């Protein structure tokens, strides 16, 4: 009963968001677009990193690969196939990265994923300069802002559905368990490596698709634009602010932070990364489990 009410609410919200660009001025469609992109990124990120507590800074590696795939293939293949290719490439890359790194623990994983994003960016730059002799590419797709927005909205809805389904399944239970104690999880019969790999691949594929869908928005693409590490950090901060262990946590974090970042990057472009860093530290210290958990705690505190 509760589930069906939640679904009805979510569906209504989705429908309202879908018609919003027909009513709102163009500027606000752009804001909604960016926001939906980050909500999807943060939710997909939390899908893997929330329960496993493997903090990944590889978000932009996948995001950028998605965008670049579109930049390279948009004039060669029909658009749906381009998206499919992007998803496939993201999936294979996640498999390779996952197989080689998911044995790394804690801070080593963080550093590796950060390095990975840089490595991918440098490799793409090198390839473009030395092999294809192009630095920067154009994306010619007949999309306006609201077309891109609708695609992102659909992807966001799918991501929430996946996250919801996983949370209810035995995979969700296994993920929470191995985030607590991998040894115990393994002794309970869970193939720890396989489950982590599966989630990493699902999460990374969605992130790749966000990059791919957003690519037409830039028109002109070069590595420094689509492989900007700020994307990884913002995704991480949003998910942590809302709470990466809850289905709606990343959304709750992403919406206000996206608006704040929009405003800040316009007002203080030079100090933006310092503010980002300070905010990150603040969140980790004040509410390491996110706003939603904090509210729960406060409520319980008042009751008792």
């Amino acid at each position: 009963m509760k589930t069906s009410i939640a679904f009805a609410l979510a569906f209504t919200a989705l429908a309202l968001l879908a018609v919003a660009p027909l009513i709102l001025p163009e500027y606000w469609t752009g804001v909604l677009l960016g926001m939906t992109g980050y909500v999807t990124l943060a939710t997909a990120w939390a899908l893997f990193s929330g329960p496993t507590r493997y903090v990944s800074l590889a978000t932009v590696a996948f995001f950028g690969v998605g965008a670049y795939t579109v930049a390279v293939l948009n004039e060669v293949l029909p658009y749906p196939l381009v998206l499919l290719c992007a998803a496939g490439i993201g999936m294979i890359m996640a498999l390779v990265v996952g197989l080689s790194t998911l044995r790394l623990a804690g801070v080593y994983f963080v550093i590796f994923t950060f390095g990975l994003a840089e490595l991918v960016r440098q490799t793409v730059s090198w390839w473009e300069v030395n092999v294809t002799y192009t630095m920067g590419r154009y994306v010619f797709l007949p999309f306006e802002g609201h077309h891109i927005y609708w695609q992102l909205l659909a992807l966001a809805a799918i991501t929430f559905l996946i996250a919801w389904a996983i949370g209810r399944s035995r995979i969700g239970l296994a993920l929470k368990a191995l985030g607590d104690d991998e040894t115990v999880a393994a002794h309970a019969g869970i193939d720890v490596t396989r489950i982590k790999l599966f989630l990493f691949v699902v999460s990374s594929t969605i992130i790749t698709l966000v990059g791919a869908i957003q690519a037409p928005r830039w028109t002109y693409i070069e590595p420094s634009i689509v492989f900007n590490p700020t994307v990884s950090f913002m995704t991480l901060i949003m998910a942590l602010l809302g709470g990466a262990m809850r289905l709606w946590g990343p959304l709750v974090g992403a919406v206000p932070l996206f608006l704040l970042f929009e405003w800040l990057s316009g007002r203080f472009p030079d100090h933006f990364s310092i503010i980002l860093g300070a905010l990150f530290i603040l969140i980790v210290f004040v509410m390491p489990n996110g706003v939603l958990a904090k509210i729960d705690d406060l409520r319980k505190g008042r009751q008792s």
Partner: protein
Amino acid sequence: MSAQLEISNLHKRFGGLVAVKSVSFDLKPGEVVGLLGPNGSGKTTVMNMISGALPCDGGSVRVGGKDVTALKPHKVSKHGVARTFQLVRPLPTLTVGENVLLSVAYSRKPKWGRAAQAIVDEKLEFVGLAGRGDEKVTNLNYIDQKRMEMARALAAEPEILLLDEWLAGLNPSELRIGIDLVQHLQGQGMTILLVEHIMEAVRALCSRCIVMSAGEKIAEGPSAEVLQDPVVIKAYLGDDHA
């Protein structure tokens, strides 16, 4: 009858330290055997090698005739081996019931939904935690955490249970309850390897004992005899008492 658990020439080094030195023993189906020895003698390390938590440096582990030596813990558990840990290891993000459900969901005959919940309730009731499935594990006191860990191990419907000082740290009345519980399992035909320092429990539960000292097996036999063995007394208490 053939052995349920067969350990031969098990070996483990940690750097320069040889923690387990060619240890061999068998457990017959339905036997409850004590694995004794002073602190640091290698008992937990033996259990870790059986359950797959640690790789062996030599020797083999066979369960029901099948070689499980090189298998990871999740594979070993599929051969019907379950364990508890010397220091209780509850999963704090999960509720008491979910801790147990986990084992049901990933056992040899995995179940989910209502069928799984029935097993969870049954196991919680068996260990004396009936109706407490929705509680947080952090609300449980020490003995209840130990009970929950037992329920989690049993939920996989194992044939072999490895109990690493499961009775340690309990007060006398709790100890009585704990011993009854293990005896109940014994009655159901469970094969149990029991690491224990509490002699009262060993006498009550184990028909047979294996004693280790400094990584080596120094004695094996019926409990009453082994506990009188001068070699064992010396290992426990030092030379003066022998």
